Each structure stands twice: as C-alpha cells, then as structure tokens.
C-alpha cells in the first residue's frame, strides 16, 4: 500500500519540492553518462597509444550496461527514483534539439520515404499482432494493446490507448512488460544484425526506427550502430510517433461502437491531446536552422546539447530495465510479442532493403 501511495503523494507536493526531488536521480544519470564517455575515451586512448586494433565500443553501450548493472544488481534507493524517471524528458528534449541536425529539405525527403514505410509497417504490424493474438487465444483488448504498442510507439501508445479503449489494468501491464522486454533484446540484436547484413547507416537507421518500439530504445539501438544511424532512427520513429493519435482513435471508435468504451466526442481535440508535442518542437528547430536563424557554431552547440540529453536517456534506459520485474509477466503475451516482433523486424528489414534499392537511402 505504501508503494502505491508514495507516487500519488509526490504528485500533490509543492512544485519546488518535487523539482528538488529530481536532482539526485538526474545526478545519477549524469554520473553514469559521464562514466560511459570516460570509459569509451580511455579505451580509445589506450588502444591508439599502444597500436592495438580494437573495435570502438560507443559510450551508448557503456551507459546502458552500467545502468543495467546498477538497476539489476543493486536496489536503486528511492531518493533516485523520481530523477531517474526523467530520462523520458531528456529523450524528448534531445529529439527536439536533434531538429538542428536536419534541414527541412532532408526531413521532407527522408521523412516522406519514412512515412510511406511507416504506413506499411503500421498496417502490417496491426494485422500480424492481431492474427497472432487470436491464434494464442489472448483477450481482445490485450491483443489491441500489443498491436498498438508494436505498430506505433511502444509504451506511450499503450498508455494512450489503455484509457481510450477502456482496457484492463492487467492487460496494459502485460503489454507494457512485453514491449519493454523486447526493447531490451533489440538493443543487442539490431546492431548485430545490421552489421551482419552490411546495412548502410541510413538504411539501418530507418530499420531501427521502423521496428524498435519504444522511442528511448530506438534512439539507443540507432546510436549503437553509428551517430548518423541514431539520428535517422529517431527521425523515422518520430514519423511513427506522429501517427499515435490516429491509430488510438481508430481503436477507440471500434470499442465505443461495441459499447465497451466511452464514445469520442470531439475527434480533433482527441487527436491533438494524443499528438506528441515534441514532434512539433523538432520541426520548429529544424525550420529555424533551415532559415539560418543560427550560425554554424550555434548549430553545432545545439547538436551537442541534443547529444548530452540523449546521454542521460541512455543511462536511464539501462537503469529502468529490470529483468526480475519483466520475468514476472505472463508467458503467452510475451510469446506473442516475441513472435510478432521477430516477424515485424523481418518484414521491415525487407521493406528497408527494397526502399534502399529504389531510393538509395
């Protein structure tokens, strides 16, 4: 009982007290991020000085690994909890600032291709997850949540859909756990497969953006491959995120017609409420850079600020992934999730390889 009361109580606290409560966790994220950068630089410095050929292991991987070790072997004290949860905030801040690394023309070109692939991916994923969920006899709303989570944008989409289709608490928890577990697996699997099939930075970035569900894991899976792949992955994922409202609205109308969810009154207001605002921020910064509101040095500073924000995010991804908690969830939803995600990964890889031949991504 005490565990459920504390977060609600913290919601009612004075804003300044809440803000101060975030500091320890943010400092922990920063410490992990800086340690990761230091390890990467130290290894690079040592191998260069001693003329040793050694693959560059990016700070991204170190940040996630340190976070995973701390999060799974040591119980992170409660005082750090609230601040660690801000990794989502740093992710979105980083995405908005990442707009500085794209000129509007690039966004229109890459975003246009990505959007086309995103439509195919969303349609395919929804059909696939629904078919698998039915074959395994899962509850209809759990099937919908898994389908929404795997087709659009992970945890945020599931939470947005949960209220709209009036799904059970238990179903939402199962679906979120499955998506988070699969996100953790994709951090290892995607860069490995990307290198194995010799994808270019751009092609890999589009693939990670299409197939990895949770935005934080998408950014990390992209950055683990290369810096360029990371930014393309985020752009592609942002296209998916932008469609969250439409997919959730479709399901909400379906369940409302069946009398199992509240009817949607104003559809435009519903779409605006569900629309991720950071997508607009990303576009605003990109437009400002395209209109040369910033000089070259300032653009570099914005890009570096974005990297710092992502560094905190990657530390949070590791800290947040708790294997013990994930393993407590049901086996069948997880099995459907795994099968669906593997098929979606294969389908999107085929799409990307095909698009690469046509548009030379």
């Amino acid at each position: 009982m005490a565990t459920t009361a504390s977060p609600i109580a913290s919601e009612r606290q004075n804003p300044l007290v809440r803000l101060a409560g975030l500091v320890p966790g943010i400092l922990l994220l920063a410490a992990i991020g800086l340690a990761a950068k230091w390890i990467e630089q130290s290894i690079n410095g040592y191998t260069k000085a001693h003329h040793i050929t050694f693959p560059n292991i990016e700070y991204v991987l170190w940040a996630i690994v340190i976070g995973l070790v701390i999060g799974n072997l040591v119980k992170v004290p409660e005082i750090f909890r609230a601040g660690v949860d801000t990794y989502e905030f740093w992710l979105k801040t980083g995405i908005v600032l990442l707009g500085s690394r794209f000129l509007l023309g690039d966004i229109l070109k890459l975003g246009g291709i990505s959007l086309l692939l995103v439509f195919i991916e969303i349609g395919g994923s929804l059909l696939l997850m629904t078919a698998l969920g039915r074959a395994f006899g899962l509850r209809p709303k759990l099937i919908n949540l898994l389908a929404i989570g795997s087709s659009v944008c992970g945890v945020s989409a599931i939470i947005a859909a949960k209220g709209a289709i009036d799904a059970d608490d238990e179903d939402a928890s199962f679906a979120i756990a499955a998506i988070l577990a699969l996100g953790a697996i994709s951090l290892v699997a995607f860069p490995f497969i990307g290198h194995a099939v010799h994808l270019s930075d751009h092609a890999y970035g589009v693939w990670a953006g299409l197939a990895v569900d949770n935005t934080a894991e998408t950014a990390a899976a992209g950055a683990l491959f290369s810096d360029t792949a990371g930014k393309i992955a985020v752009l592609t994922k942002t296209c998916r995120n932008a469609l969250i409202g439409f997919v959730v609205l479709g399901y909400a109308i379906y369940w409302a017609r069946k009398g199992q969810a509240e009817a949607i009154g104003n559809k435009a207001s519903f779409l605006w409420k569900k629309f991720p605002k950071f997508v607009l921020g990303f576009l605003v910064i990109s437009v400002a850079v395209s209109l040369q509101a910033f000089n070259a040095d300032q653009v570099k500073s914005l890009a570096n600020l974005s990297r710092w924000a992502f560094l905190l995010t990657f530390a949070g991804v590791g800290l947040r992934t708790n294997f013990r908690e994930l393993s407590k969830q049901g086996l069948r939803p997880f099995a459907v999730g795994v099968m669906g995600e593997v098929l979606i990964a294969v389908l999107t890889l085929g799409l990307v390889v095909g698009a690469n031949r046509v548009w030379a991504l």
Partner: protein
Amino acid sequence: MANEVDVKLAVRHGLRLSMDAWSVWVAVLLALLVRFGVLQHVSW
C-alpha cells in the same frame, strides 16, 4: 501486482504528458540561450 504496477503507470502517464510539453519548452529555451550567446561553444 498488476494494480500496483498500473497505479505507478497512471502517475507516470501524467508525468509523461507534462514532460512532453515541458521538453519542448526547455529545448526551445536552450535554443534561445544558444541563439543569443548565453550558451556558447557547447562541446561534446
């Protein structure tokens, strides 16, 4: 277990929504600080 997880999720959902808007304002503020020279030569 599921209820406990979900109360936390609901709270986090509230935080997520506010974080979504806050992240845009903070990023725009940082961009303005860079634009007007308060933050200069941010290195990586």
